[in-house]
């Protein structure tokens, strides 16, 4: 039954979403869709606040030990799963152990660590090393550490759990594959009591029914929000924003969407030579790149930092000069020095992510101007995923990445995870290791500064800048937030 006057509004919210998630199990995938939808169903021990610090969510508090080798989580009491069962330390341990197995990063760092139940409402993470960065990994919002009932986890296959039962403000009611995912308000939801703050603090579901409708075609999403079929439409093409803005019933919301790079093949071909990578850095007009891909300065920032200004605990100015350098003539010389002889280089890209493709086109044109020949190999995403593992196949590959919340999430840095592009810089690896065990946040920040600087020297990839995405909402939505994705709790809809 409904209780309280605020529920009167309720109603149905239709969200035009791009693609269906492979699963709603956040442990099992790095898919953004799983995050965007799954965060309504599942919650984590820790999550990010407005300042991008790790803050408690299902945990009441958390505390590191003196030697920094263990973290103690006090759980909130009375938090109920959607199946009515109360959340206890058993569930948390089971969930965290499973997540630790499945999340690649967690697996790397915590493989020798353990989650231990202290009592029904206390869980301790015991680590082999003083991983100061652990809280960031625990709070990650991609492939996140959702807490689920122990029984469900025990029955789950590797491809993902079959029942989606969490503690979040919405419950899964129906998943019509490739059509929609229907969530309904969790009437029993137990919200943290503090003020809303990023993903933590007060969370109150106001909407009765929340539909994520799968609308792969961007023009259709745009048209659909214009006609009022949808209340929220994600990933509106930049060129459609004027149309949205000119419509009194609509509002365009820009939000950080990620950063653009070009990844080098550092194993084979000319770009295994650092000089060639530096030459490319000088050759490419980063502004033109960002402009072509993201249409308008409104939608991108030219930013050298691997973590941006919003990540106050990480931001630094290292490498900025190298980012800003642009000198085609010098680039030409450097290419020669690197041994470039007029051979044709391969740029691998896809049109499934239009911005990556557009970056590829600009790089190609920029290189053409200094006499470097290239050819575009355009594949669909699935093919690209495969061919990019072939070390002989490409020289350059534009790639977009979701915003990272800590340095460990940047795949192209670490040579030991064998990520495409195949970095091989002992310095960077060393700095990464140091970072993990930095005694304090300040130390971590300093080490990250060195890391960032080194990355602009070594250039595993070139960051072109940060870009925003645009979501369109109808103006009758109140308190709709964007924080590392759309936030639907606390949102209300008036007629």
């Amino acid at each position, binding site marked *: 039954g409904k209780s309280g006057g605020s529920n009167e509004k309720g109603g149905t919210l239709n969200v035009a979403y791009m693609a269906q998630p492979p699963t709603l199990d956040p442990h099992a995938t790095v898919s953004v869709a799983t995050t965007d939808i799954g965060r309504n169903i599942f919650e984590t021990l820790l999550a990010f606040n407005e300042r991008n610090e790790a803050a408690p969510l299902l945990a009441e508090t958390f505390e590191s030990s003196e030697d920094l080798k263990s973290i103690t989580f006090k759980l909130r009491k009375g938090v109920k799963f959607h199946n009515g069962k109360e959340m206890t330390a058993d569930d948390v341990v089971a969930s965290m152990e499973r997540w630790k197995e499945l999340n690649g990063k967690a697996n790397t760092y915590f493989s020798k660590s353990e989650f231990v139940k202290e009592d029904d409402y206390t869980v301790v993470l015991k680590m082999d090393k003083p991983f100061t960065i652990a809280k960031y990994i625990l709070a990650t919002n991609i492939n996140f550490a959702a807490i689920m009932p122990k029984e469900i986890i025990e029955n789950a296959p590797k491809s993902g759990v079959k029942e989606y039962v969490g503690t979040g403000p919405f419950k899964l009611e129906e998943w019509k594959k490739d059509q929609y995912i229907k969530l309904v308000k969790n009437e029993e939801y137990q919200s943290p009591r503090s003020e809303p703050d990023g993903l933590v603090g007060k969370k109150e579901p106001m909407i009765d029914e929340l539909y994520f409708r799968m609308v792969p075609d961007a023009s259709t999403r745009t048209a659909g929000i214009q006609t009022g079929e949808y209340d929220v439409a994600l990933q509106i093409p930049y060129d459609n924003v004027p149309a949205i803005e000119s419509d009194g019933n609509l509002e365009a919301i820009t939000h950080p969407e990620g950063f653009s790079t070009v990844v080098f093949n550092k194993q084979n071909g000319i770009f295994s030579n650092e000089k060639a990578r530096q030459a490319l850095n000088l050759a490419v007009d980063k502004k033109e790149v960002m402009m072509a891909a993201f249409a308008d300065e409104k939608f991108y920032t030219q930013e050298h930092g691997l973590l941006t200004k919003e990540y106050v605990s990480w931001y630094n100015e290292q490498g900025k000069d190298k980012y800003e350098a642009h000198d085609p003539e010098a680039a030409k010389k450097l290419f020669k020095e690197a041994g470039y002889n007029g051979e044709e280089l391969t740029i691998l890209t896809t049109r499934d992510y239009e911005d990556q493709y557009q970056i590829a086109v600009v790089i190609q044109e920029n290189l053409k101007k200094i006499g470097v020949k290239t050819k575009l190999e355009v594949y669909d995403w*699935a093919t690209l995923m495969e061919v990019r593992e072939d070390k002989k196949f490409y020289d350059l590959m534009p790639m977009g990445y979701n915003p990272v919340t800590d340095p460990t999430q940047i795949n192209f840095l670490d040579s030991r995870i064998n990520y495409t592009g195949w970095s091989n810089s002992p310095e960077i690896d060393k700095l990464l290791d140091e970072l993990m065990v930095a005694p304090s946040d300040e130390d971590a920040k300093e080490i990250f500064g060195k890391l960032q600087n080194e990355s602009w020297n070594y250039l595993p990839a070139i960051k072109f800048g940060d870009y925003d995405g645009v979501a369109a909402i109808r103006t009758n939505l109140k308190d709709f937030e964007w924080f590392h994705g759309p936030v639907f709790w606390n949102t209300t809809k008036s007629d």
Partner: protein
Amino acid sequence: MRIYIAQRLLSLIPVMLVVAIVVFFLIHLTPGDPASIILGPEALPEDIKALQAELGLDLPIYQQFLNWFSGILVGDLGDSLYLDMPVLTAFASHLGPTLSLAILAQLISIIIAIPFGIMAATKRGTAVDQFFMVFALLGISIPSFLLGLLLILLFAVELHWLPAAGYQPLSAGLWNHLRFLILPAITLGAIQAALIARMTRSSMLDILSMNYIKTAHAKGLKERVIIYKHAFRNALIPILTVVGQAFGTLVAGAVVTEVVFNIPGIGQLIVNAIQRRDYVLIQGTVLLIAATYVFINLLVDLLYGVVDPRVRLNKK
């Protein structure tokens, strides 16, 4: 008759075999693999390997084919790798929208095309005829994605008469159901209408020059009676072929239209499946589509018997 149907159904087997082999090897030759898609763009190689093993994708290809094919023989099309449900279920849940769309498109096109075609034929060589035929040519020439986009812009975005895209099942009410299908049905029906109108015209022209039309005139029948009772029923046979084939292709995938209007039908199912390299789903769906196509053609052939007594099958 029953024997004939049984025979026709038997002749499905070679077609299905061809389709099965082609689709399996085509799809397995395709670069890209489902595991990396499921795990997402930032997945690490070892995770992908593990999932591949779990999905049985690490077996030799002939082994995979045999596993799959032996499943088919006992009626098991397997489970979708991505959607996490049996192929048959996935197909069934996407069949509804496509069927509704195809039927509506077919109805619209028939209702427009046949009177057009007849009129053009009876007024052969006049301005009416030429107008209709230019119209029909335009219908064939305009690519359906363009027409779809234009319809959305006009009727949804500008006029707000109809929704831009999406789908509601029949259970949501008839009007609600139709509302979403009108624009896509017009888009899809345009080409059909043009083809059918042309076929109607030319087959009516053929029939109108037949001796038995002269006979009908000699009997003192009215023009209208001759056209509708004598000529049209005879002209219906080739028209039926076109309609039948068209319907086959409609059901088999109004891919572009479904994408433009975001209708969760068979076309979208397969396009998504190809993008996701959902091997089992692609294979199964293509097989089912082919079966549907053959089945519809069988129905059309049986309908011939109703329209044309000369091909009534029980007599042979």
